[in-house]
């Protein structure tokens, strides 16, 4: 039996070795942060520009269609967006299509100091969980009260001052959706296109490419994954969780690139020998 050459070995590194290396490289930045500068993409800039156009009292819907598992990717952008919305003195309505969405809402409130000066039910509210995908999103556009009769705490919607006069998409100035899946598409189809409500997307990195075709005509601004969050944090001058995460992204990306290059060197060398 012939001995495996180094070139062949480079192509067949055991996956467990890669997993261990990745694990170690993800830990290093937490011990010794790298703090490299973040370049800002045009989608993030246009997101902030769109948010800055809001006027005092404008009603904004923030749809949370990302679960707790997507916090590292979506929460920083949600936090940064909420900070800007508070600065613009907008009225914020949160709702969620994820069963654990209430945890995301509570985390946003915890992480945004500006909420302390605001009154729940007057300046912001969380209406809770809805199910039923696009039909429900379409129904929300025509009649919010057909889907939500109370907020997530059980308070009747008509007792919430923020909801006075807010019945449908026509009463909303902007929708921002945080997604791990298709809900952005539903809001584009049921809110943005028929009612012209300006729409922004906060997506995980994996789906960022799926929404890019809509920017800037249909989606006025968007962030993708932790990188997008870090860009927004840099733009508003308040570094947060995403900025910290970028170090781990640096090390993990570098590992994948090095592994791919090594495998290709091995592949090229063995092919030449043949």
């Amino acid at each position: 039996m012939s001995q495996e050459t180094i070139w062949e070995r480079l192509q067949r590194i055991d996956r467990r070795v890669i997993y261990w290396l990745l694990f170690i490289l993800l830990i290093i930045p937490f011990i010794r942060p790298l703090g490299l500068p973040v370049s800002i993409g045009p989608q993030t800039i246009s997101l902030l520009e769109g948010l800055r156009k809001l006027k005092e009292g404008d009603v904004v819907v923030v749809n949370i269609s990302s679960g707790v598992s997507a916090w590292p990717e979506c929460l920083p952008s949600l936090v940064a967006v909420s900070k800007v919305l508070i600065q613009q003195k907008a009225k914020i309505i949160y709702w969620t299509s994820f069963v654990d969405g209430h945890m995301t809402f509570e985390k946003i409130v915890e992480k945004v100091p500006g909420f302390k000066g605001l009154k729940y039910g007057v300046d912001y509210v969380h209406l809770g969980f809805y199910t039923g995908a696009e039909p429900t999103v379409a129904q929300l556009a025509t009649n919010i009260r057909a889907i939500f009769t109370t907020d997530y705490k059980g308070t009747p919607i008509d007792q919430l001052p923020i909801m006075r006069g807010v019945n449908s998409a026509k009463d909303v100035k902007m929708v921002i959706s945080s997604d791990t899946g298709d809900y952005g598409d539903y809001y584009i189809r049921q809110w943005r296109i028929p009612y012209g409500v300006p729409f922004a997307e906060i997506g995980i990195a994996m789906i960022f490419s799926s929404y890019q075709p809509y920017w800037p005509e249909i989606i006025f601004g968007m962030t993708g994954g932790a990188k997008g969050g870090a860009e927004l944090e840099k733009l508003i001058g308040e570094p947060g969780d995403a900025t910290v995460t970028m170090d781990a992204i640096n090390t993990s990306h570098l590992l994948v690139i090095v592994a791919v290059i090594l495998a290709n060197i091995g592949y090229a060398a063995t092919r030449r020998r043949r």
Partner: protein
Amino acid sequence: MIVAGRQTAFVFLIVTIALFYIFLEMARRGRKIPIRTFPAIAAIPEAIGRCAEMGKPLLYTSGYAMETLSNPDQGPQTLASISILSHVARLAVRAGVKLYYFTCIKDSLPLVEETLRTAYLEEGKPEEFDPLQINYQAGQSPYLNAVMGFMQRERPASNILMGGFYYESVVMGEAGNTIGAMQIAGTANTHQMPFLIATCDYCLIAEELYAASADITKDPWILGCLRGEDIMKLVILVLLIVGFVISFARVPILIDILKR
């Protein structure tokens, strides 16, 4: 009468349906419509044969698909997957291969059960059908967990992953690789195509998933629809080229028409 901004879309819809109907009628009257073979569909007998040779089960799953058929992007992918499942099930029953189906799409359960039951019945082995070949788990992570557990315990010789996949695609694809399974996949979810292409042996991408049943059945009705679809794609292509050319003259007429 027509909602503003949807007039052109309405015209496009009518024209598309009319084209479907025209070509469907032509196909029904005997006009030959050629269709290329999808390597992923052609590989299904090989995948089942592999299971038969190794005496191992076949795993079939249709992805997270937002857990419902009522999702307009994901539901049709699940239905297209069930169409392919019916073909796979018949081949599996014929070869004596045990097929296990995993899903988290609750409202698809009666359809899947009916499809498998009919496949066993039509292959003359109704007594071999066991409803418990269908495994349901509520939620994306429990479903993924169940599939991974099954792969590790039962070591299926082949995995077929067809439908609306999300992040589970790369996890299942890689897990299938570690057990050395032959893998055939298909999805119309653009964000998951790269992962399935990277981890599986064969992959149906985008509309191929919807067109697969044409390759399987060679049904003239389905082939006619496909031809209509191709004509509409040509129309879009022409519009794109015209739009590109007239954009240099800064004439907004086409955009104005399309926005109506």
